[in-house]
């Protein structure tokens, strides 16, 4: 596996995990009456909201990397 593939895979995995957590915490805010008992009180509304808000920037960064990293790397490689 090349470094490029390793980076690509890592970003894909991180983005997948982040999307799942982002969705779950979103539900944790708006559907707290369901999510809180389902998680045995672990994911409270306030905790879900803290996590959700703090994931906004990492989500955007990973999404941008996911979309643009490979084309940029390829272009870089082609030039050199």
């Amino acid at each position, binding site marked *: 596996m090349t470094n490029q593939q390793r980076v690509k895979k890592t970003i894909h995995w991180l983005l997948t995990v982040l999307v799942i957590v982002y969705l779950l915490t979103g*539900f944790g805010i708006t559907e707290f009456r369901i999510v809180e008992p389902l998680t045995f009180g672990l994911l409270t509304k306030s905790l879900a909201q803290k996590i959700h808000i703090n994931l906004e920037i990492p989500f955007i960064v990973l999404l941008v990397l996911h979309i643009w990293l490979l084309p940029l790397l390829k272009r870089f490689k082609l030039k050199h």
Partner: protein
Amino acid sequence: MTRRGILLAVFSLILVAALVFWGNMACNETNELAPAEIREYEGVDLSSINDFRENSIKGPQEIDVESYTLRITGLVTNSTSYTYDEVLDKYEHYKKVVTLDCVEGWSVKILWEGLLVRDLLAEAEPLANAKVVIFHAYDGYTTSLPIDYVMDNDILMAYKMNDVVLPPARGFPFQLVAESKWGYKWIKWITEIELSDDANYRGYWESRGYSNSADLDESFFGG
């Protein structure tokens, strides 16, 4: 789990989220609560009663107006209990356009009509050591505000919104209009107003990580 399985799980989650969102939208469209509401007041465009998101701790409450009582208790000279009609008849009514900002990110601008909490408290005569006003709701929800905030500002306890009587889902018979505070201070279905000297008292959401001051110009976490 294979990569295909993970992708399938993610798409399933997105699909569920979309269905829930669509379901909520559909509910909002069909549950017309008050078609006679006004949407403009003295040149100000108002939100609709249907623009609220239902996010109470136990869902909408149905209160029987015949058996309803509002109690003023705690550190007061005259502990009192009023029926719904007594509250409406005894105190002067006021109207005010105030925006409710929810920590979930939505807001609604509504014309509220009600009586001043400070008028209610004045009648009960708070004792000198009363520091906090604790509001109790029919569903067990509680929240508190400093007595100075309640006495020094025109804080309404509303019985009408956009010129119609509060629907049960919006807090009938009374909702607090906690101006300049985050939405979780706007307690619905008020049944009791208690005066206390416990400055460390925390209401339902406040004891679960939300700010006790709940000032709109500050973060709603901590404090």
